């Protein structure tokens, strides 16, 4: 058969690689800043754009979507062309994908510090950016499917399956989780409320980890590890089982992020069971990776690429064992809301994603520039700095998580909480937070050394923009000889394969989510729970803007230690008007769901102005701008009508009266402050925030009174 000559597009891979390194350094630096803020509040710089609440989402978004995302695209574009023996479907689409994605990152880097956020973790970007993500993601998928269709290799290697599953699932997750009601160009409300919103968000959050941080990198592992080890994967059959069972099971496990919350019990149990089952495919994959190195372990000693890969795969194994264990309710009772989760995430992020990315960068650079690595020694230094960085990061966080959790739960002989003041437990773990920052700094230093090494490597060679290759085209009258009907059916029809992968992930999603959507009584209504007043609504939006949810939960779990500390445990029915839900996932500060009446308006006023002066040793940043900026009453109308569309029962025409009610409530709060000798304009944002904080937990008190009567 005639052999066709063509070339692989290395230029697009190079572009994604540069973006990976640049955004990796930026994302890590932002992360280090956030870590320092939790030890020295001074690093909040007293600016509204750089407080922890806004910096933390910037860090997570930069790392997940900019660093890991760009690395994924680099890895996919490089390996896919070679595995399918063809150039990418369209250079134009490749570059549209590249620049579109970088613009999205730029938009995130601008909007997040400005406080334009939906507050839903890893989905913080506002609706216009969500639409842009959808478009660019479709471009990526189109380019990918197109490449598969014009391939010269009849069979699709398992790495390609992982890439297809990534594309399909992320698309579904993003679309379902981003349904929102726009208010203005950069403000929207989630279409879901309370429990539903939480379930959808963590179905998304969990599977974003699965299908953005895991499946594409498993595909990358299945391609680059055999290349680097120079031997085929240990068991191809195992990789098939790994693929299908992973994508089938992963999607069910989301509710394990909401154990002991107000989520219905059956959904929690479903999440636990599937999480435990996940150990099997995850460890199958890990063992498949490590076993690929059998007989090549001597090379691991010499080759930094393999070193990084071994630690990456081991970290994958550790994180995927720890995840299911954390989803056991008794372990979760201790670990949830603490630094343990932060440690868990970073074993995955720094170990699995980071190290695998470093490995493929070290592997691809010499090959694409037709040279050898500038310095193996520096790569080894990077390896050890990175490994130490992970250890210095994770260990203190584990200790800190367990210490703080046990302090929260400690009772004295008389049956009272030993550490009644939450702050005591925070102060206790600050040295550990300091150590964690050291770990992060080590890891970042390693990445800087890598950057230098890669630049030197590239400079010592000459870049091969279009790598020549040749292969025979696919025969049109192909007759299947081996593999049987099943392989023919699945692998030769990429579109059918994509549809089947979609079905596999949809089944889990549907069983998990549909019942909460259809059955209204899943969320028992509490008659005393009323929609927020316009002023409280503004306060809530300020709470969202400032990212309070990054440190404060609104979910009192049904434990004695929590009901003693905060008050009555949280009920699903209390959240029916919460668009979006603000349960939070980490308690750096105390829970706020029972704040009503706990402190006076004046206390809140002083506390937001100078937290450290009110609670000595507090690491909460000050929010002086809330006292100078005014509530934007022009938005009230839009907010009310958007929420009504989302299902909040504001009476029709309430838009016209809303600002009147707002001013009335604001004047009352301003008057109460004045009575304590504090002068502030009734229009100041702090007034709205105080109104919102005082509302938290108020309704449920009304319920009790009505029951008594």
């Amino acid at each position, binding site marked *: 058969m005639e052999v066709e000559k063509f070339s692989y597009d290395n230029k697009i891979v190079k572009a994604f690689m540069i973006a990976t390194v640049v955004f990796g350094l930026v994302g890590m630096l932002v992360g280090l800043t956030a870590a320092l803020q939790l030890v020295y509040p001074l690093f909040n710089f007293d600016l509204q754009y750089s407080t922890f609440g806004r910096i933390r989402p910037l860090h997570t978004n930069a790392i997940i979507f900019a660093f890991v995302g760009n690395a994924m695209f680099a890895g996919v574009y490089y390996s896919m062309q070679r595995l399918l*023996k063809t150039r990418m479907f369209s250079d134009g689409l490749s570059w549209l994908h590249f620049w579109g994605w970088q613009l999205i990152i730029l938009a995130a880097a601008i909007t997040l510090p400005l406080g334009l956020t939906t507050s839903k973790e890893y989905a913080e970007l506002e609706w216009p950016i969500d639409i842009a993500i959808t478009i660019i993601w479709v471009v990526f998928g189109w380019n990918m499917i197109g490449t598969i269709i014009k391939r010269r290799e009849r069979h699709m290697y398992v790495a390609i399956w992982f890439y297809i599953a990534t594309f399909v699932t992320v698309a579904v997750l993003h679309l379902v989780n981003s349904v929102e009601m726009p208010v203005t160009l950069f403000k929207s409300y989630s279409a879901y409320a309370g429990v539903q919103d939480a379930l959808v968000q963590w179905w998304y959050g969990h599977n974003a980890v699965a299908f953005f941080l895991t499946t594409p990198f498993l595909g990358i592992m299945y391609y680059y590890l055999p290349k680097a080890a120079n031997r085929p994967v240990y068991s191809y059959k195992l990789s098939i*089982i790994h693929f299908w*069972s992973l994508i089938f099971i992963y999607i069910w496990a989301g509710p394990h992020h909401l154990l002991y919350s107000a989520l*219905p019990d059956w959904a929690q149990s479903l999440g636990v069971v599937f999480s435990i089952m996940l150990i099997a495919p995850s460890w199958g994959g890990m063992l498949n990776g490590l076993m690929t190195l059998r007989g090549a372990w001597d090379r691991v000693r010499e080759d930094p690429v393999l070193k990084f890969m071994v630690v990456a795969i081991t970290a994958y194994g550790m994180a995927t064992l720890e995840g299911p264990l954390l989803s056991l309710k008794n372990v979760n009772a201790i670990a949830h809301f603490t630094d343990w989760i932060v440690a868990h995430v970073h074993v995955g992020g720094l170990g699995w994603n980071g190290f695998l990315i470093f490995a493929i960068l070290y592997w691809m650079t010499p090959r694409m520039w037709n040279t*050898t690595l500038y310095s193996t020694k520096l790569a080894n230094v990077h390896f050890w700095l990175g490994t130490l960085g992970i250890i210095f990061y994770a260990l203190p966080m584990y200790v800190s998580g367990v210490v703080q959790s046990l302090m929260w739960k400690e009772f004295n002989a008389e049956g009272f909480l030993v550490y009644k003041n939450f702050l005591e437990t925070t102060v206790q773990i600050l040295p550990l937070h300091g150590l964690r920052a050291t770990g992060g700094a080590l890891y970042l230093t390693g990445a800087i050394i890598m950057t230098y090494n890669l630049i030197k490597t590239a400079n010592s060679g000459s870049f091969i923009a279009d790598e020549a290759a040749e292969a025979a085209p696919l025969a049109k009258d192909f007759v299947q000889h081996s593999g049987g009907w099943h392989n023919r059916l699945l692998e030769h029809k990429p579109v059918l394969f994509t549809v089947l992968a979609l079905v596999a992930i949809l089944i889990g999603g549907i*069983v998990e989510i549909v019942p909460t959507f259809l*059955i209204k009584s899943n969320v028992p209504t509490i008659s005393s729970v009323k929609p927020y007043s316009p002023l409280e609504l503004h306060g809530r939006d300020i709470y969202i803007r400032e990212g309070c949810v990054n440190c404060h939960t609104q979910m009192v779990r049904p434990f004695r230690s929590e009901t003693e500390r905060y008050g009555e445990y949280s009920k699903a029915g209390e959240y029916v008007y919460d668009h979006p839900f603000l349960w939070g996932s980490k308690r750096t500060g105390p829970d706020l769901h029972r704040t009503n009446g706990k402190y006076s308006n004046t206390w809140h006023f002083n506390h937001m102005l100078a937290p450290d002066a009110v609670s000595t040793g507090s690491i909460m940043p000050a929010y002086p701008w809330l006292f100078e900026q005014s509530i934007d009453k022009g938005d009230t109308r839009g907010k009310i009508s958007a929420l009504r569309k989302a299902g909040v029962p504001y009476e029709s025409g309430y838009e016209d009266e809303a600002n009147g009610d707002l001013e009335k409530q604001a004047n009352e709060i301003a008057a109460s402050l004045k009575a304590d000798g504090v002068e502030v304009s009734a229009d100041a944002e702090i007034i709205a925030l105080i109104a919102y904080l005082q509302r938290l937990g108020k309704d449920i008190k009304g319920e009790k009174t009505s029951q008594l009567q």
Partner: protein
Amino acid sequence: MYKNVLQSIDNIEIWPVISFVIFFIFFLCLLLWVFTADSKFIDRMKMLPMEDSSPEKEKSNCKQ
């Protein structure tokens, strides 16, 4: 709450059964597929990533 949910979804008992059946069939088919797959085909698939590197092109990852 648990009871509430159970009572309010019609035929709730069918959900776990459906889940189980889907699972069982899915994994049965998967295993059947994998274990009946032709070994020559599997070997060929295994070698796919190795194909685009001819020996002279394949460099060591580090300086010798």
